[in-house]
C-alpha cells in the first residue's frame, strides 16, 4: 500500500442509504496520487455507489469525500469544477450518440474549459491517437464496436485532464474478445501514473495492474491489500468464498 502526505482521494466514514436500504455502512478509503485501486465484491454490495460518490453522482447520507483537497459535499465547493478532476468511465459507455467521436471528446474542453475549437480538436485527435482510434474521429458511436466505444469514452474523460479516473466495470458490457483492447489502454494509463479507482471482475488485470485491491461486501470494506497477498492469502471468509466463485466461473 502506498503512503502519501497529500492523498488524492480521501473518504471518511461514508454512509449512503436508498430509502431504508443502507448500501454503504461506513467506508474509509485513502488513495494516493498515482495509485491504482481495484474494487471487487459481490453484486449489490455497493461498489458502484461508492465509486459514484467520488464525483458526486450520488448524494451521500453522511461522511466526507475529499478529492484533491476539495470537499465534494461541502455546499461551498464548485461541484462542476471538481467533477472535471475526477473522470468517470461507465459500464454502458454513455457516449453521446448525436455527436461524432471527435465531438464527444471535445465537448468538455470546448464548453467547460472554453478551449478554442481548433485547439480542442488537436487535443481530441491526440487523445484518440492515444487510444488507437484516430481514424474514427468522424465516425458516430453507433458505427463503433463496444471496445472502440469504451476507448472513446476513456479519451473523452482524459480530455478534461482529470487527476483521477473512476471506472465502473468498464469491460463488463463487452464481448470477451474486445476486453483486451480496453484493458490495454487502462494499463498504459496506470503506467503513466494516472490515479485510478476501478470496479472490475477482471481478476487477472487486478493482479497485474493494481497497487491495492479492496473487497467490499455488505456496504463495508472487508479486506484490502496488495494484490499478491490479497489473492494468495485472503483472510476474510466471504472474500475466500467470493474468489472461489469468481475463479470457477
Amino acid at each position, binding site marked *: 500500500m502506498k503512503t502519501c502526505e497529500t492523498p488524492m482521494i480521501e473518504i471518511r466514514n461514508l454512509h449512503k442509504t436508498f430509502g431504508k436500504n443502507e448500501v454503504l455502512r461506513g467506508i474509509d478509503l485513502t488513495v494516493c496520487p498515482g495509485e491504482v485501486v481495484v474494487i471487487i465484491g459481490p453484486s449489490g454490495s455497493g461498489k458502484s455507489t461508492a465509486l459514484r460518490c467520488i*464525483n458526486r*453522482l450520488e448524494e451521500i447520507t453522511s461522511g466526507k469525500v475529499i478529492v484533491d483537497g476539495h470537499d465534494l459535499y461541502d455546499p461551498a465547493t464548485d461541484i*462542476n*469544477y471538481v*467533477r*472535471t478532476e475526477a*473522470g*468517470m468511465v*461507465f459500464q*454502458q459507455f*454513455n*457516449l*453521446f*450518440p*448525436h455527436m*461524432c467521436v471527435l465531438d464527444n471528446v471535445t*465537448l*468538455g474542453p470546448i*464548453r*467547460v474549459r472554453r478551449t478554442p475549437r481548433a485547439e480542442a480538436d488537436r487535443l481530441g485527435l491526440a487523445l484518440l491517437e492515444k487510444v488507437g482510434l484516430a481514424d474514427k474521429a468522424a*465516425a*458516430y458511436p*453507433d*458505427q463503433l464496436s463496444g471496445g472502440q466505444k469504451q476507448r472513446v*469514452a476513456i479519451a*473523452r*474523460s482524459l*480530455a*478534461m485532464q482529470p487527476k483521477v479516473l473512476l471506472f465502473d466495470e468498464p469491460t463488463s458490457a463487452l464481448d470477451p474478445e474486445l476486453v483486451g483492447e480496453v484493458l490495454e489502454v487502462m494499463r498504459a494509463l496506470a503506467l503513466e501514473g494516472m490515479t485510478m479507482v476501478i470496479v472490475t471482475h477482471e481478476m487477472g488485470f487486478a493482479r497485474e495492474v493494481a497497487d491495492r485491491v479492496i473487497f467490499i461486501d455488505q456496504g463495508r470494506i472487508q479486506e484490502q491489500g496488495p494484490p499478491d497477498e490479497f489473492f494468495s492469502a485472503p483472510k476474510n471468509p466471504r472474500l475466500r468464498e467470493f474468489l472461489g466463485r469468481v475463479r470457477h466461473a
Partner: protein
Amino acid sequence: MALDFQASVMWESVPLLLGGVHLTIIITLGGLAIGFVLGTATGLAKTARGRLPRAVADIYVEAIRGTPLIVQVMFLYFGVPLATGMRIPPVTAGIIAIAVNSGAYIAEIVRGAIESIDVGQSEAGRSIGLTRMQTMLYVVWPQAFRRMIPPLGNQFIISLKDTSLLVVIGVGELTRQGQEIIAVNFRAFEVWLTVAVMYLVMTLSIARVLRVYERRLNARFGR
C-alpha cells in the same frame, strides 16, 4: 332529391377561401411558435428539481387539458376583457388561444421525450464538468428533440384543425370564410368540400415537411 353538383362553384369559392387559408396559417404558425416556447418551458419545469415550477406546470397543463378548447376561446375573448377592461382583437385572441392550448400538450411531449433519454447521458455530461443547463442544452435536448418530432407533428396538425373553432369569435379563417360564402350562395356541399380539401392539403403538407426534416436530422446524426 338528387344533388345538383356544380364544380364551378368550387372554383369560384377558391379565391375567397384562400384569404381564409392565409389567416388560418398565420394563426397556426403564430400560435404554435409561442406554444412551442411555452410548452418547452413548461416541459422543462416538469422535469425540474424544484417543487414550485413543477406545481405551476402541472396546474397549467391539467387546466388546459381538462377543458374544451371552445370554452377556453370564449373565456379568453368574451370573459377576460370583462375582468381586465381590455378588448383583445379576434386574431390576437385566436393566436393566444392556440398558443396556450398547444403549449399544454407540447409540454407533455417535451417532458416525455426528455425523460426517455437514458440518465447515463446526463451522468456522462455532468462527469465531464458540464453544468445542469449545459448538459440539457448539448447532451439531452438534441436527442430528446429528435424523439419529439413525430408527436409534435401530430400536435401541429391538431392545432391547425383547432383554428376552425375560432369561428365562434368571428375570426375570418378558413371555416369562417366557408360559412360566409354559403350564406350568400347556399352551396353547402361544394363549399364545405372545398374547405375540407384545403385543410387536408395543409395537414398533409405539415406531415410531409416534418418527415423530410426528421430524415435529414437522422442522416446528420449518422443513423
